[in-house]
């Protein structure tokens, strides 16, 4: 096998018998049931399905933002639920980038400060230069000192893309990244995301309703009632 083939065969994300149940008063609700999933490095995967099918819960569990009732998740070979909450946070800081439907920028920070934040949290020197370079890359070189409220939705999502990529993560997790954007803006964001993905060899894992977006991915996982159906 070539090197590339080895890399692809390596499962950068692996979920094993992942189940999530919540108590709703008297009965127990199963949100995810027995999910098994393997993602190769460099793949781009769209998780699709109706509202309430468990897409976002799966994404949250894969990122270690929540804990499952049972099962395992391995990120880059590490069983993340053997780690405590803080160790998972450190792992996220090392491996993951995030994008959200509602952008989740800090309103008190300017565009560049929002992008600098993950670097600052990791204690990286020279955060400003990397952040500025990336903002210029996503076309916001003129908007560095603007606050989120002074930016349009598309611009805010570009800041979020820059923030997601600035730590050079191995994986990018995105939750409905075009959900709050109009069609044309959404298309631009998709384009940008995949360009960066290509440039940096990032693994993409995204939850979406957007056909155009899911069509761009190398694999599509469909969910219904907490299970992978296809």
């Amino acid at each position, binding site marked *: 096998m070539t090197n590339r083939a080895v890399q692809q065969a390596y499962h950068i994300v692996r979920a094993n018998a992942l189940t999530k149940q919540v108590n709703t008063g008297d009965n127990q609700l199963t949100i995810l049931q027995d999910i098994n999933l393997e993602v190769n490095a460099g793949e781009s995967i769209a998780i699709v399905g109706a509202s309430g099918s468990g897409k*976002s819960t799966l*994404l*949250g569990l894969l*990122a*270690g*933002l*929540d804990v499952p009732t049972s099962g395992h998740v391995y990120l880059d070979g590490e069983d993340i639920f053997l780690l405590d*909450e*803080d160790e998972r*946070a*450190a*792992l*996220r*800081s*090392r491996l*993951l980038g*995030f994008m*959200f439907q509602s952008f*989740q920028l*800090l*309103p*008190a*920070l*300017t565009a560049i*400060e929002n992008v600098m*934040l*993950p670097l*600052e*949290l*990791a*204690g990286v020197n020279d955060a400003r230069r990397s952040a500025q370079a990336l903002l210029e890359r996503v076309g916001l070189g003129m908007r560095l000192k603007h*606050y989120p*409220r002074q930016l349009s939705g598309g611009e805010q999502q570009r800041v979020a893309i820059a*923030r997601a990529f600035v730590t050079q993560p191995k994986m990018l997790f995105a*939750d409905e990244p075009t959900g709050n954007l109009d069609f044309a803006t959404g298309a631009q964001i998709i384009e940008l995301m995949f360009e960066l993905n290509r440039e940096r060899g990032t693994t993409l894992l995204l939850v979406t309703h957007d056909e155009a977006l899911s069509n761009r991915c190398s694999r599509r996982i469909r969910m219904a009632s907490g299970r992978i159906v296809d």
Partner: protein
Amino acid sequence: MYLSRLSLRMLRRDWRAGELRILVLALMIAVSSITTVGFFADRVQLALSRESNRLLGADLLIIGDRPLPAHYADKAEQLELMTATLIKFPSMTSKEENNLLAEIRAVSPGYPLRGELRLADDASETITEPVTRGAQGIPSPGTVWIDEKLMAGLDIMPGEELAVGATQMTVAALVTREPDYSVGFINLGPRLLMNAADLAATDLIQPGSRVTYQLLLAGEEERIAEFRSWAQTQLVPGQRIEGIRDARPEIRSALERAEKFLSLAALASVVVAAAAVALAVRRFIQRHLDGCAIMRCLGASQSTILRLYLYHFATLGLLASGLGCLLGFVAQEFLSRWLAGIVETSLPLPSGLPAVHGLLSGMVLLLGFSLPPLLNLRRVPALRVLRRDSGMTNLHGLAGYAFGLLALSLLFIWEAGELRLGVMVMLGFLAAVAVFALLGWVVIKLLLLMRQQGANAWRYGLANIRRRTIASLVQAIALGLGLMAMLVLTLIQGDLLKDWRTSLPPNTPNRFLINIQPDQLQSLAEFFAQRDMRQPDLNPMVRGRLVAINEQPVRISDDTETRKKQLLNREFNLSWADELQADNEIVAGRWWQSEDALANELSIEEEIAETIGVKLGDQVTFDIAGSLFSATITSLRKVDWDTFRVNFFVVVRPGQLEAYPINYVTSFYLPPSQTGIMHELVRNFPNLLVIDVAAVIEQVQKMIAQVSSAIEFVFVFTLLAGFIVLYAAITATQDERIYEAAIFRTLGAKRRQLIRAWAAEFAILGGLVGIFASAGATVLGHVIAKYALHVSYTFTPWIWLAGILIGVIGVTIAGLLGTRSTLTHPPLWTLRRIG
């Protein structure tokens, strides 16, 4: 390290985004209020300790109310100490038709041993700061040096003559600075310095005169210490030692009390500011929940988040408290000026201690209210980035506020300097808040009953108040407390003091005559008869020191309570009477009847009895001119001092004291048209002391006015803090208001209609503030009138009118200004954003 840098950067960003204004303002107000009082008190303390040997005019003083035995001076000579003597007593001085009561200070050569006298030969009206020079020696025989008050009061210039007792003396100079004068509360009288050699000629010192004898000592430190320890064993009752450390104990204790009171007043603003801090911290945390979740998502650990925000708050606290200290430093200058007449000195610069105190208080306040929510903040789950409803940590938890209240209580105890007082003030405060809260709740319920009446704006305003009942009550109470304090102080300065003055019936005695000798009774009666004046009631008295209670010698130790110490250190005036005076009332025991078997009985005023610790049936022993007199307490009396008649703490059954050296005292009413009679009286009887009650009352009133101005100044901080609470509350509801405005305007409401609805809301809130403030002021005014000034309180409607008007107008204007920016967003922008 990088965390503290990051935290600093975030602080800067939050500041820029306007997230921290309220916190900073609230902390600044709280700290500046504390430091204003702190700096001022510190300056006076420093003045006292730095100038204390100049204050004494010596290194050590032996003070007695009878001539000091020679062995003190002998011992001083043996130890090669410098000595001088000072004899001081009050006396009338006069020049032609002008008379003035002055403190006469007769000094021996060498005075003062420490510090200096500064003199001016002239004080022409055009020169406000006379050119002064250091004095050489003391006034030569036949001359006196006087101070500015005496010069103005007698209208006398250097070179002219004045009468002191039986002699005429020439004024040689004006004293502009004298030891024992630089710091002092209530320096009532003018002063006159004379040569001790002239004292006998004045004929002023007679049995029963109130004279203080001082031996001044100065020299090497060890010898002074040796003298001190020797003298300690020689002291008899009526004598005491005063050194540099214990200079002016009465000033120190008065200052301590004033400081304590002002500090507690300052705490009112701290409490109100605490409400603003609590509100602001809550908002801060709420607005940072998402940010924390994102940071958790981006890999920040719990401890990173906690440390980040701890640094953040610590820096913020230090900066805001530091600014508060600066503001306090500026403000205390005003306070010193306000109290200028009471503290007679140029004060040294304060030390850094009050600033440290202020910084610590600011940090305690901030961390007290922010630590519990911060500890919660770090637990925000990262999942919140996907599900906004997850991880709403309990922000309103009672535990969080309990911690803040605990911190606040500690501040109270610290400021009060004692556990009991601190806890009592704190409880009193909580009780007031509880009563206000209940009152406010009732008023809101009543208003809601009338909800159907009135215009739309009124209904919406009321609906808003109801929706935010607790927040509205907190705001109204915070502002109400500040306004109440202002109203009470204005009330005291104006109406209550006026009431006190006018509550005295006409013909209330306005002059006291003291020091009347038995051989003057006849001629004094003739003097009054010749001028068609009613013969005054003359009360006999002898002076005696309390030396034993139930045959146990009275001991005064360092920890004896100040008032008790003062009472025991001086001589009591003992009088006797067959009948109980009309303004006296027996509260325990019984007054002697003529048919009772003759016994040594006495009656004592109840408060004095309590202070010195005697009760009915106790035997007390007085030293009167060297011989002992004992009697049993058979009654306790309550005295109405406001009649301005002569009254005595101790009255003895007749037939027991007549053999001792007696002098007489009386009070009478002198119509304003006949003040000329006083000049003749003083000329004919130079040894008599005339006390002008009106002048004393005026002095007291001036002082109360000054002190209440100072307190009012401190309460300005409380009112400011109240407005910050209002601002904080408005900011806390801002998002809600922006949304409300967007909906209203989308539905077709005009800007004006919206403003009217909010104006109605703020007017109702302001009305509540006014009601709280007026009700509180009325109750407090009543209490002060009854218990402090002893006048019947007349209801003053203006308090209510002013309180409610100020409340409604002030809060409406402030509220509308605070919500102004909410109206500037176009509705579409808001709706899209909230979307």
